[in-house]
């Protein structure tokens, strides 16, 4: 499940930039092509309606600080903005954010000063009071979205300094807190803000304000005329439409009924590429679709079973089968853009049937006493259900009967009834690309899917220590230890990184085709950079 918590380390940021630079070659494919770069830039045209399609249902919701599904992220981004925003190198910057300056001296007290003259949709100027309300709401221990924030901040730590300045006093030092400020769910809302279910009037600072919203059908957002970023936005209206499935979504895109389709299935890419009217945005920043094995449940209690399954699979074939090759292999690790990625330099795990069978035999499994489990997946995302089916087929075949797994796709209420549910020992999940720390925090604290770490482990202390550690080398050493434990005892099987893809009509302009944490480069940074070439 996608998580909201975005952590970046101020200290590690510089290193991260280097790391990102090293990866620039990999990103290049998705960047600007030379031809496009040479072409004379067209001047943006004003006006028009942008229709954005996304697979959604009645569970669609709108809360400035909390999302569940992809349509929620889209709607959040249309109307709400954060203090800071990641740039193309995943660095928090002020450019598209509401903050003029963010500073700390000790990693505990953080000062946030707003830009001047930013107005909410209702014409009210944004003040420190709104900032205070926003962070208090975000850190409210009773709220769903506060879990990862709880060790660092509670509402009492939020205070006003002056009319444009607020102060956050953390519970423990976090040198990386700017990352949180730039997370897309850390938005600034007016005092008294409530989510859509409680108050349909959704006031934010974003380039478009909400006009109507029907879960499972659509939302309409109209231009915010007093938007602070002068000259923007270009569009009159943005409409976000929900589709029952990817077939309907891509049919609508090909039929010209929508201009943008968010998160198209990889399988559709060849079809869409053939369409001369359409363009593709591909994001290889490291989206993952982990197979979660619950480590304190049978048959995965023994770490050897987990390791054996990791050895049984042929990652290359899985990627070919599920993604048609549109991805990069992973060693059950994550955050490839992070400078500390694969700090132990583990070689890529090749399929090792002999080794796996030996491990399984050691763990007490055989053909007569096979490893039996049922891997659950939601049926509406082929990236998840497809991987589940392919994985099961591979481990069953490769183990020659020592593993007897089945895959079940769940058609109703997967995220409520099956995901992380009691008694379910194997299931699928997904994460958008993130740096290592926020991803770790998500998997261990916010969504403890695999119940990792084991009770004897000290990895959580290590994590907190690392967060507060200013010394890069010391920190890297800690991360290595963390990653070693994950590699040897973790419950996630991550065969590859997914190249996420979105598709849009060629008349949609202003989308920067670079890697980013969110589709379409942050949806054309809240759709304000997007314009229509009629």
């Amino acid at each position, binding site marked *: 499940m996608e998580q909201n918590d975005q952590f970046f380390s101020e200290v590690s940021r510089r290193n991260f930039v280097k790391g990102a630079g090293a990866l620039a070659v990999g990103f290049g494919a998705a960047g600007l092509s030379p031809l496009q770069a040479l072409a004379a830039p067209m001047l943006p045209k004003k006006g028009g309606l942008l229709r954005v399609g996304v697979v959604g249902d*009645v*569970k669609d919701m709108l809360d400035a600080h909390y999302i569940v599904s992809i349509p929620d992220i889209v709607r959040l981004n249309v109307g709400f903005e954060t203090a800071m925003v990641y740039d193309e190198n995943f660095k928090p910057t002020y450019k598209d954010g509401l903050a003029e300056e963010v500073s700390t001296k000790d990693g505990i007290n953080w000062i946030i000063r707003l830009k001047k003259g930013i107005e909410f949709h209702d014409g009210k100027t944004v003040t420190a009071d709104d900032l205070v309300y926003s962070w208090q709401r975000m850190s409210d221990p009773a709220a*769903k979205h506060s879990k990862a924030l709880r060790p660092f901040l509670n509402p009492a730590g939020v205070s006003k300094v002056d009319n444009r300045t607020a102060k956050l006093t953390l519970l423990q030092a976090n040198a990386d807190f700017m990352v949180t400020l730039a997370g897309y769910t850390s938005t600034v809302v007016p005092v008294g803000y409530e989510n859509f279910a409680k108050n349909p009037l959704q006031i934010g600072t974003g380039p478009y304000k909400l006009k109507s919203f029907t879960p499972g059908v659509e939302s309409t957002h109209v231009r915010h005329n007093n938007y602070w970023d002068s000259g923007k936005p270009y569009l009159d209206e943005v409409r976000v439409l929900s589709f029952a499935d990817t077939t309907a979504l891509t049919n609508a895109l090909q039929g010209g009924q929508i201009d943008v389709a968010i998160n198209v299935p990889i399988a559709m890419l060849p079809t869409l590429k053939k369409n001369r009217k359409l363009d593709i945005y591909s994001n290889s920043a490291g989206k993952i679709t982990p197979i979660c094995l619950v480590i304190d449940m049978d048959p995965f209690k023994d770490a050897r079973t987990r390791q054996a399954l990791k050895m049984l699979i042929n990652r290359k074939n899985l990627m070919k089968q599920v993604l048609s090759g549109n991805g990069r292999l992973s060693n059950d690790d994550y955050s490839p853009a992070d400078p500390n990625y694969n700090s132990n330099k583990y070689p890529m795990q090749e399929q090792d049937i002999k080794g796996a069978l030996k491990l399984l035999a050691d763990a007490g499994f055989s053909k007569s006493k096979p490893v039996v489990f049922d891997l659950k997946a939601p049926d509406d995302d082929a990236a998840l259900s497809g991987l589940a089916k392919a994985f099961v087929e591979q481990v069953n075949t490769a183990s020659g009967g020592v593993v007897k797994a089945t895959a079940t796709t769940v058609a109703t209420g997967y995220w409520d009834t099956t995901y992380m549910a009691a008694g379910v020992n194997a299931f699928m999940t997904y994460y958008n690309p993130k740096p290592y720390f926020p991803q770790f925090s998500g998997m261990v604290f916010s969504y403890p899917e695999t119940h990792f770490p084991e009770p004897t482990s000290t990895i959580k202390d290590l994590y907190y220590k690392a967060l507060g550690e200013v010394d890069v080398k010391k920190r890297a050493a800690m991360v290595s230890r963390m990653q070693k434990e994950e590699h040897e005892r973790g419950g996630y099987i991550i065969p590859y990184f997914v190249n996420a893809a979105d598709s849009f009509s060629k008349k949609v302009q202003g989308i920067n085709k670079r890697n980013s944490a969110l589709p379409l480069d942050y949806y054309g940074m809240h759709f304000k950079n997007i314009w229509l070439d009629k």
Partner: protein
Amino acid sequence: MPILKFIARRLGLGLLTIFAVSVLIFLVTQAFPSDPAQAILGRETTPEALDALRQELGLYRPAITQFSSWLFDIVRGDIGKSFVTQMPLSEYIAPRVGNSLFLMVVGAAFSIPISIAVGAFSALRRDKTFDKTTSTVSLVLAAVPEFVMGTGLILLLSTSVFHVLPAITLIDAGQAPWSDLSGIVLPVLTLVLAVTPYVSRTMRASMIEMLESDYVEMARLKGMSERTVLVRHALPNALGPVFQVIALNLAYLAGGTVIVERLFNFPGIGSALADSVRARDLPAIQFLTLMIAGVYVLMNLLADVATVIATPRLRTSLK
């Protein structure tokens, strides 16, 4: 008025059926192995919050109390809140009822006249080329499942062969269902193709029976013109059974269109039901199924009343 008494009696029976339907729906959804409070609060919640919500939702009350308060609320016009969106269901369902109604009216406006005309004409041209052709075509259409037919039509008209019609319907919130006329062509076409065979086959059979009846022969032997024989003697008597089929098909158009609406992303009650089923939104599932069943019962009632009114023998024998 005996006819009013008949309607009242029939209505009573209909209400009884609806009541039994509501019991059935409640039983099925009660047996559903999940906790509504958990569904609302999600995984990230405390036992206390769960407990409080269960209390608030009345989940600790005996099933019979829960059932009666559910039914009583619906009777009062309060159809409750969605578990999923926490918004009043009426807001979610009301515009979709309008959309589905529009789909139903358009579908009926095409299918009923076509099917009656085709059925009657086939009966007149019995075993001739027209009859043989239409009977074969309608046989094929009646047999093929809607999603197969719909997929076929999308293939043919939207994506693969011709690109003349949009594959899905887009009706924005607050907009009239006719705002996307080109978008409803395919769903309407699928529905018309699905419904027409039934009505036309019934019409054909009914018309043939009438044409072979003694009184139609007698009318001919009385020297009535062929027009009078058909219009005055055969047609009115042939319509009786057709009413029943039309009613059934109207009811189907109103609620049984889960597949077609979902296939074309049409925002009606059928797709609302499909969505609610996916999201396991119990109040929505309960109300929507009850509503669709209600439409069925109502349509059957109307058909019965229409048949009685149109059939003197039945009408005058009412007590």
